């Protein structure tokens, strides 16, 4: 049983990490706790479902559409809401509250357009096959999520560490003003980050939407709460931290269910979270310095 549980934990951890990657990216670069990320995640799932059902498209096309659609949505949110707040140097609480408003708008729009009933992706969107190896079972989708989240983390980390773009982003995370003086196109990079984070959120929405295949307009809210837990555990704004924080949460949940009983799951999760904050406020794997306000 334990081997199956470890596989369960790995796939659950990667589900959390996948969501948290976009969430943490925005915080790391823009310094905004984006409470609309759950709603963007939901938008991605619904957008992909709609085009896949209407035009009978395969999953890869749905993913691509969700990526583009949510990316543009992220850009729009940045342009209309976050940019004016940056321009007047609002303390970072203010954009957070603005994103609550954005989340309300997106959630109620989805409910208006699609109704509150649970929806699913068209049949056959993904293979239902279960791979079996030494008594341990894993679905194609789980395998896909695990691979994708690790690849995504690696790509993001490489992009941030090795490329010119990444160096510029890191400079901005330290101090947007200094970065600007260094001749970095700060605004452009903020847009890029908003695009990328939302696009990743959209893709996460499709994959996790497929995972339970019972989507609703409010599906992003519980995920957002988990996402917050993940980035605290891993260290806010840290890409590697989001990955490990997700895995940590996945393993903590599965193991507490296995050994302590499922009623204890959330108590263990939040107890751990509280403990981590007290002992290591920067997160278990956090390296990034806290932004000066």
């Amino acid at each position, binding site marked *: 049983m334990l081997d199956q549980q470890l596989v369960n934990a790995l796939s659950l951890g990667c589900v959390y990490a996948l969501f948290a990657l976009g969430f943490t990216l925005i915080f790391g670069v823009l310094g905004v706790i984006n409470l609309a990320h759950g709603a963007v995640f939901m938008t991605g799932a619904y957008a992909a479902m709609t085009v896949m059902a209407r035009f009978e498209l395969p999953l890869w096309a749905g993913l691509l559409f969700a990526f583009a659609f949510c990316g543009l949505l992220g850009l729009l949110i940045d342009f209309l809401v976050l940019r004016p707040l940056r321009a007047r140097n609002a303390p970072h609480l203010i954009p957070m509250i603005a994103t609550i408003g954005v989340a309300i708008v997106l959630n109620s729009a989805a409910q208006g357009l699609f109704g*509150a009933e649970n929806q699913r992706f068209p049949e056959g969107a993904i293979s239902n096959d279960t791979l079996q190896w030494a008594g341990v079972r894993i679905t194609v989708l789980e395998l896909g999520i695990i691979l994708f989240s690790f690849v995504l983390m690696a790509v993001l980390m490489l992009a941030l560490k090795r490329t010119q773009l990444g160096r510029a982003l890191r400079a901005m995370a330290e101090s947007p003003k200094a970065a600007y003086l260094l001749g970095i196109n700060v605004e452009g990079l903020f847009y890029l980050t908003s695009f990328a984070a939302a696009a990743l959120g959209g893709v996460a929405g499709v994959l996790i939407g497929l995972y*339970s295949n019972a989507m609703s307009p409010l*599906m992003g809210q519980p995920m957002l709460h988990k996402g917050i837990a993940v980035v605290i555990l891993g260290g806010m704004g840290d890409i590697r931290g989001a990955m490990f924080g997700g895995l940590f949460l996945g393993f903590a949940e599965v193991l507490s269910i296995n050994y302590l009983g499922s009623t204890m799951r959330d108590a263990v999760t939040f107890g751990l979270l509280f403990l981590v904050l007290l002992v290591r406020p920067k997160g278990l794997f956090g390296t990034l310095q806290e932004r000066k306000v």
Partner: protein
Amino acid sequence: MRQNFLKSALLAFAATAAFSGAAAAAGTIKVGVAAALTGGAAQYGAAIRNGFELAASEINAGGGINGNKIELVVADEQSKKEEVINVFKRLIFQDKVIMIFGPTLSNSAQASNPVAQAAKTVVFGTSNTADGITAIGDYVFRNSVTEADVLPETIRVAVKNSGIKKVAVFYGNDDVFTKSGYDNFKKALEDLKMPVTTTETFAKGDVDFKAQLTKIKASGADAVVLSALIAEGAPIMVQARQIGLNVPFIGGNGMNSVKIFDLAKGASDNLYVGSPWSASNATPENTKFIKAYTAKYGNAPDQFAAQAYDALHIAAQALKNVKMTGDIGAERAALRNALPDVKWTGATGAFQFRRAHDKAGKPAGFDAQQTPIVSVTKGSVFVIIK
């Protein structure tokens, strides 16, 4: 009025608020519907509203009630405590409805029903299943069958049919509907002396249930007793089959929905549900209801819609015996006195009320008295087990 307006905006507002209610067209009976149309319970609220609107259009098309048309005043209570109280007060004192259907969730009913009771206005729940709702007072009615009546029968039939010796229990512990379902399952299992291998929980909005299901599989249960709503229940069944847990499921009220065949496609077989209403129950009343509902809304009805639909028909029977004098207080009291005697056969089968008692044992409101039908899923239909 005009002078009021000039004197004070507040007073004018108060006056319009007070008078607008009285302006009901002659020959209509205003009936309030408080449902959760937005927020977390919106999907049930939507089905409930559809059920009421279908019943109202049928009654009105058939000549109304002694010539009076039913006018539904639908209000969104958002399944929020404060809002549900505000909505009830508006319906009772401003819109002056003769009675209120709702609210959607049991916890909301605990906040709103005392308001209706104090105002001596009938409140009629169609989806509140928790204990103690009808203990609030003698103006509180419901036709939602509490699971205490249904589950023993469901388990008994499932045990007989599938040779079950021991079960695992799985339920949502942060939702009143699924938690009260669990309490009743627990009691029924104790009464039947059925061994329980393990009891597991999940939370609303979870997407992964494999850790609990793996544990249930290892516990060697012959069946899983599941108190869940369809949003979590469907993925639970799919994921159970994925990890090779192929035992039957015994579901509560929340699982009694044809939505399961869509959301859990390919993994929906072998789910037992018990309820007075079944999508496969081919009585003339139910067939007519399902046909009319599907034609009007383009999707199949669920239990929430069926209970709402029946509820308005039940109330209509009582309203026939209420003299419309224009004195809303007297009309409300007359309705209260006429309602307990109604017997009606609708989509959910034969129905009558049963007196409920409060904690002190004194007679209070009225619960539903109905016979459950147990069915099992097989190839995208509910098959009724006789």
